[in-house]
């Protein structure tokens, strides 16, 4: 598969066209807004925690297919995780995209983002929802 088709594989396009867990929560435990000032992408994230577990999460994205799909797949991925587990996933995901290692190669939906690391200008699109999640959860922890 050529790298462009790998970047825009069906799963990513499908998630970008029908993002999961989109919208806002009426009473979130924590929220954060992520901005990419260079391209204008925006993510609004609400998280509802119960006993340190992510009981609900909602993302509203205004941006490209990569950032919208990243938010959608992230929301599904972290649902039900503890704050600690979610923060670990954030760090692993960002690390994998920045270094191009294949941590997610055989596990989970996140593997569809492996090829983003070959497009350095688009890495920020894929990591925006994740850095936003980190901001929301770190606020709670502190």
């Amino acid at each position: 598969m050529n790298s462009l088709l790998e970047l825009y594989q069906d799963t990513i396009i499908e998630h970008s066209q029908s993002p999961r867990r989109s919208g806002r929560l009426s009473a979130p435990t924590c929220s954060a807004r992520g901005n990419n000032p260079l391209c204008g992408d925006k993510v609004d994230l609400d998280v509802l925690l119960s006993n340190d577990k992510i009981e609900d999460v909602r993302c509203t994205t205004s941006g490209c297919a990569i950032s919208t799909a990243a938010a959608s797949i992230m929301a599904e991925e972290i649902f039900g995780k503890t704050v600690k587990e979610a923060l670990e996933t954030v760090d692993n995901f960002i690390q994998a995209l920045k270094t191009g290692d294949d941590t997610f190669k055989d596990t989970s939906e996140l593997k569809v983002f492996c090829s983003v690391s070959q497009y350095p200008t688009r890495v920020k699109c894929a990591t925006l929802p994740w850095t936003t999640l980190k901001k929301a959860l770190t606020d709670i922890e502190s």
Partner: protein
Amino acid sequence: MTSPSQILRQIRTTADSFSDRIRLDFPYLKTYPNLCYLDAASTTQKPQCVIDAINYYYTTSNANAHRGVYMLSELSSNILEQARENIARHIGASPEEIIFTRGTTESLNIVAQSFLRSQLSTGDTILLSGVEHHANVVPWQVIAQEKNSTITYIPVDEEGNLNLPSARELINQKPRLISLTHISNVLGTTTPIEEIVNLAQKNHIPVCIDGAQAIGHQKVNVRDLGCDFYAFSGHKAYGPMGVGVLYINKKWHDQISPFLGGGGMIEEVDLQSSSYREMPYRLEAGTQSIADIHGLKVAIDYLNSIGIETINSHEIALTVYALDKMLNIPGINILGPLKNRTAPIISFTIADLHPHDLATILDSKNIAVRAGHHCSQHTMKRFSVTATLRTSFAAYNSHAEIDHLIDSIYYAKNLFSKK
């Protein structure tokens, strides 16, 4: 009788023989023979003569200008002043009205800091338009905040043209300065500068023009325009990056305070204070990038050797051709006017296909275009978009490149068709 399609074919053949000839002057096409570089509004590619000019300067003339009494320094000074003279002549100014800067952004910051700042006080206004580049917004905000002044904006209509009745009204409120783009870097619309200057002069208001998008594409004459300040960059007119120009009409020269302090701009330095040199040197502290200034002079000579009107007609023909093809693309939204284009810039969006995704897909097809807000978030808000794709042309672009662009947009649409 000649049919319309025969006429169109003829126009295309003539245009292609023009761009075929021009393309030989641009070495980026030797490095990347298949690259469709359609981002002239960001920066133009450089002809071999400009690249050679920089090399020539460092090979034959490198010394600090206006500092040494030796032959090489004199040679360097002559190159610097020759460039000033040629550029002044090119835009209808006098050499002492030409200040070398790092680019349009620095030029506009100089007008804000060295001219307007000392005159601005509480309650004053500065008048801009609703489609300015951030370089013609933020420098004014910096001084407006400091002096408790406000910025007002002339609104634009659906096509992006200035609303002249509003402009008249806002100018009558006597802003301290009017600063407008010559050509919008997003919409390609041209500001009716003469009309604005006419209204401004009646109210004794200085007018500053951001000429970044005009200088490489049309004849600019500051006397005809009647503006007081004119800012532009070299790199958008086939010249090197990091060098630009600020034209300041002589009548303001005694009201210009220094921008940067240092060598070359002083007359005498005492322990507590200094006296400053006459213009333009007062604004040229430190060592200038003379090789790049020489490169800019050669770029302007290059433009003139082809003829800027010839380049303009070629670019407008490409723009009309591209617009015509684009209008058939389902879901396209073209910003700015659809007819009577005067500059080779087209911004557009396509339904369900974000500009960044489209730009990445076009890149995979060897097409370089710009996606984003183009440093003009006001314009994005005015037209209710967060980002657009922008394609912009120069003398070296061809009809075949536009055909490839259009085909590739269809390819991208197909890739993104509902899964």
